[in-house]
């Protein structure tokens, strides 16, 4: 369970990203966080694995107080929290399987991790993860030769290979075309159901969020303005979240 208690975040340059955020996410939920860019979505997600630190309040995940985690304990916690990025953040100039294997590095002994000696067990875990996202046949191809959608799948496989209980996704489909975006989102949906992994995904596109997530959190200027089931959301609520009428760029499939 992820629990935010009165969380606030102010960046050193004075920008207030989050104000008094409180929320609870149960294991196995698929939550979409929507809002304008700059509303604080990204900050909220990055607080969960302490890529940024809170300035107020506390975050508790599985009885661990996240802001106080440091060094080894933090790394140990991060093993259980996967992260997917908008720009994929793959390792260029190396094969797909090596990209996925990189997620096994923290569990290895220091010497093999520095020289990249992976065991058969790790290699099988990596291939299994690739199989789950349906790109097993690309395992030995260089990652930078794949299409954007395939690259995001490699990133997803890399996250699966660390066997997480939570996956954080920061705008995972923002730089993909609508059809590929749809496919990636259904990958997330499948993983959420089959592996029972909690998924927190940031997105800008309302229609995709409503289509795949069970629960939507709407953020406007650092504050939660909506938190509830996807089915309860209305046109008016969306207007409050976005602070304006919805435009074409908020929707991925424009004709629908």
């Amino acid at each position, binding site marked *: 369970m992820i629990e935010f208690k009165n969380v606030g975040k102010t960046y050193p340059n004075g920008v207030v990203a989050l104000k008094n955020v409180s929320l609870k996410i149960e294991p196995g939920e698929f939550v979409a966080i929507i809002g304008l860019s700059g509303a604080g979505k990204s900050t909220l997600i990055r607080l969960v*694995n302490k*890529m940024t630190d809170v300035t107020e309040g506390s975050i508790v995940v599985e009885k661990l107080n996240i802001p106080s985690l440091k060094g080894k304990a*933090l*790394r*140990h*916690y*991060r*093993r259980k*929290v*996967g*992260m997917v*990025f908008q*720009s*994929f*953040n*793959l*390792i*260029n*100039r*190396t094969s797909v399987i*090596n990209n996925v*294997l*990189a*997620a096994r*590095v*923290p569990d*290895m002994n*220091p010497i093999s*991790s*520095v*020289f*990249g000696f992976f065991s058969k067990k790790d290699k099988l875990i990596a291939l299994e993860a690739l199989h789950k996202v349906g790109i097993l046949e690309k395992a030995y191809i260089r990652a930078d030769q794949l299409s954007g959608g395939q690259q995001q799948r490699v*990133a997803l496989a*890399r*996250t699966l290979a*660390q066997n997480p209980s939570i996956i954080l996704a920061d705008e995972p489909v923002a730089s993909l075309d609508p059809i590929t975006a749809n496919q990636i989102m259904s990958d997330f949906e499948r993983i959420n159901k089959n592996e029972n992994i909690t998924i927190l995904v940031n997105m800008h596109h309302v229609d995709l969020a409503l289509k795949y997530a069970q629960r939507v959190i709407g953020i406007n200027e650092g504050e939660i303005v909506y938190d509830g089931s996807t089915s309860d959301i209305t046109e008016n609520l969306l207007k409050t979240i976005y602070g304006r009428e919805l435009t074409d760029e908020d929707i991925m499939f424009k004709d629908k």
Partner: protein
Amino acid sequence: MKTLCSKISNYIKTLIKRNQIHRTAILKDGTSITRPFSYSLISMIITLSIFMFFWNLIVSAFFKRFGVGTFFSNFSNFFTIIKRMVLEVNWSYFNNVLGPMADTIRIAVIGTIVGSLIAIPFSILASQNIMGKSKVPTIIKFFLSIIRTFPILVYALILSYIFGYGPFVGVLATIIFTFGIITKMMYEIIETTDMGAFIAIEATGATKLQAFSAAVVPQIMGRFYSIVLYNFEINLRASAILGFVNAGGIGRIMNDQMALQRYGDVALMVLALLFVVIIVQNISQYLRKRLS
């Protein structure tokens, strides 16, 4: 005096003003556009005066002392040496060349390998993007820029007084020299590497070192090998002259035979060196092309 000063400053002011008018064009509809001030004339004058200064210091001073005639008549000496080198190549000297030539290659091999191995940790420590806010990179960069000021021969010269004569000094000098260059080239590459993957691997719970070896190393490995090969080429050429300060290799007998005016022997050494350099250069270029 005062009036003179004000006269000069007034003159400069009018010059600047006139220049500005000159640089401004007024279009038909009344809009004006000013061309930015060009420094080319000023830099040309500075360059020319630097050149004239050094020309006076070296070339015309030389001609005043020895005369233009002597200089050009002496040039026949130069061509005599080249002619004798070409005509009198002493093939029987080959056995004497073999040992020192091997030493020259050995110095370059060991110097390059050890130098580049030492460079690896230091180039990581010198990369600001890996080290975060630490001051270590600034300090290392400062020392590196001092290390790189000296040419390899200065190191060989100093070290030869500490370690005595012989190839060991050459190896040490090559290590220092290689270390300086490779560390700089590598931290420049590391600092311009895409850090997305590094952040992603760190987010999986890896330490900085693990994230570096998993995410950054694969991206820079090819270029590292290519830089090492390139440095091996440089070191091979450099270690050929190390012998001039008794730091081992072929340079020593080259110096001796030159002093004895045995140009045929020198020619053979140059040929041997050329042979080795061309082979190494071709292999290295082939490998570097495959690496990129």
